């Protein structure tokens, strides 16, 4: 995490180009530029600036947005919930259709239903999320008019209604990865001895799959979700932009447009923190699914 802060700090500060000048498009002279730098404390040695940045970040202060003139922390916290809701909703949706499909694929392994699901996952994997988003918008938003196509409404029900299409978009991208990893981990579990025992007891294949295999195959899926959180967040950036959701992603795209460096710096730090936290939570959740980890 310390490395992350150094990296964030350096990328924003060590780059060629002068943010203030770019922002002002050469409308101000050298003296004014120097004054602004002094005001922002950017004329001091880099190391001092870094420790300042770190101290403030630890205290929850990520600086002030150059454009919106508001504290970055406030802006980020405000936009965090839509993004988290979007991710949570998409994960739920993805699991909804990934588990049944993976069960079918594992049951009919290497026969045609498995092949069809595999091909479907490959095609799903290759679809760009912004394009699926546009297609869903076109179908369900414009033609059928079932769902709103942009923004985030008020109240819980409204919000879920607005979030459905964006979440579906992300889950169509996440789902294929889940299906395939769940399938392969179920096939791994199927080779273990206690499955032989279950077969010898004369249990039906479906019962074995659902009762004995699925639970043990879930651990790799948590890993897959955690490993892919970085891809998920990437997807969320694009999807939020497509659907005009007021989340971290669209804030990032907008702040890049305005070259609002403190905001970009704060946002990238928050994104990295999310990845680290999710991976930590995944490690903890193994213990809930699998008590054996606790003993190890």
């Amino acid at each position, binding site marked *: *995490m310390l*490395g*992350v802060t*150094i*990296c964030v700090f350096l*990328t*924003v500060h060590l*780059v060629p*180009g002068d943010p203030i000048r770019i922002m002002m498009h050469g409308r101000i002279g050298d003296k004014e530029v120097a004054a602004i730098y002094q005001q922002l404390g950017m004329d001091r040695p880099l190391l001092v600036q870094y420790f300042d940045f770190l101290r403030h970040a630890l205290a929850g202060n990520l600086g002030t947005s150059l454009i919106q003139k508001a504290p970055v922390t406030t802006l980020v916290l405000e936009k965090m919930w839509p993004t988290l809701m979007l991710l949570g909703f998409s994960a739920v949706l993805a699991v909804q259709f990934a588990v049944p499909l993976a069960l079918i694929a594992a049951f009919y392994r290497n026969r045609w239903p498995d092949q069809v699901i*595999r091909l479907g*996952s*490959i*095609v799903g*994997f*290759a*679809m*760009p*999320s*912004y*394009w699926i988003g*546009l*297609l869903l*918008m*076109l179908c369900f938003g*414009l033609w059928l008019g079932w769902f709103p196509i942009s923004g985030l409404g008020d109240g819980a029900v409204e919000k879920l209604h607005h979030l459905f299409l964006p979440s579906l978009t992300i889950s169509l991208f996440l789902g*294929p*990865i889940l299906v*395939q990893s769940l399938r392969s981990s179920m096939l791994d579990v199927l080779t273990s001895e206690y499955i032989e025992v279950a077969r010898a007891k004369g249990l039906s294949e479906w019962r074995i799959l659902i009762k004995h295999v699925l639970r043990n195959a879930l651990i790799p899926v948590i890993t897959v979700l955690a490993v892919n*959180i*970085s*891809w*998920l*967040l*990437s*997807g969320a*950036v*694009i999807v939020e*932009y497509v659907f005009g959701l007021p989340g971290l992603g669209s804030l*990032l*795209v907008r*702040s*890049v*447009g305005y*070259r609002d460096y403190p905001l*970009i710096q704060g*946002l*990238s730090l928050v*994104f*990295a923190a999310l*990845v*680290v936290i999710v991976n930590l939570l995944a490690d903890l959740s193994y213990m809930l699914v699998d008590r054996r980890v606790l003993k190890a």
Partner: protein
Amino acid sequence: MTDVSVPMSSSVFAIAGGEIRSWSPSLKIGGAIMAAIVMAAIFAPWIAPFDPNAQDFTAILMPPNRAHLFGTDNLGRDIFSRVIYGARIDLVIGFLTTYVPMTYGVVLGAYAGYLGGRFDGVLMRVIDVAMAFPFLVLIIVILAILGPGVQNIYIAIFIVAWTMYARLARAEMMVERTKDYMTAAEILGFPKSRIIFRHGLPNVINSSIVFSASDFVLNIVLVSSLSFIGLGIQPPDPEWGSMISEGRDFMRQAWWIATLPGFAIVLTGTALALIGDGLASRLGERHHTMI
């Protein structure tokens, strides 16, 4: 690759034919689609019925018809021709952004895995930091600093994308290092670089090759996403992502502008993923594609 039983007289094509026959269906289908797309990109001027950037104000926003298979956009440009020409841009970008970082990523990872110690430690910390960021976010931040455009996309991806390959190669190399043939090479007194390049690399590169097929897909999607949010290829170049982005404003009147170029991405991606799938089963179960 080398089939000893083939008689000397048989032509190169016969060997290639025999090689192809042994491919799995997914490798065959993926390879065929990919070959067709590459051909379309190379022979774009002969296949495309119109100049991709020629504007025709008598034919604006025409739905797909016989003259314009995919219709025309708001400037009267033929979308089918633009999709064909787009293959040139997207394939080159996808190829470079995948295989350039793979080259030095694998070498760095192989060295780290073989040498261990401080070099390995520093490299792994760098990789950990790079991996803590969502890939797209890191690329966007670098582009925010460098400014949009193809050249800067290359720079941004070259800075970040090698990490995955370095990790793969390092993990494989740490296993290979303990094997007997490596010990034998060491006892023979070969220099480290020779052991790593001649003995280690051929054995650790497979997982990266398998991974690169799905990485290729993701890179095409990534670059077209960047174009879509306005940080990538600038109009009027016919890149698939920027075409979709341009069509977004006309979704209500002309659905075909944004939707049809997307099929080109899906087709290319599916072909590449199929190739990765085939390679994975051919080179051994322990190598994984992303899907």
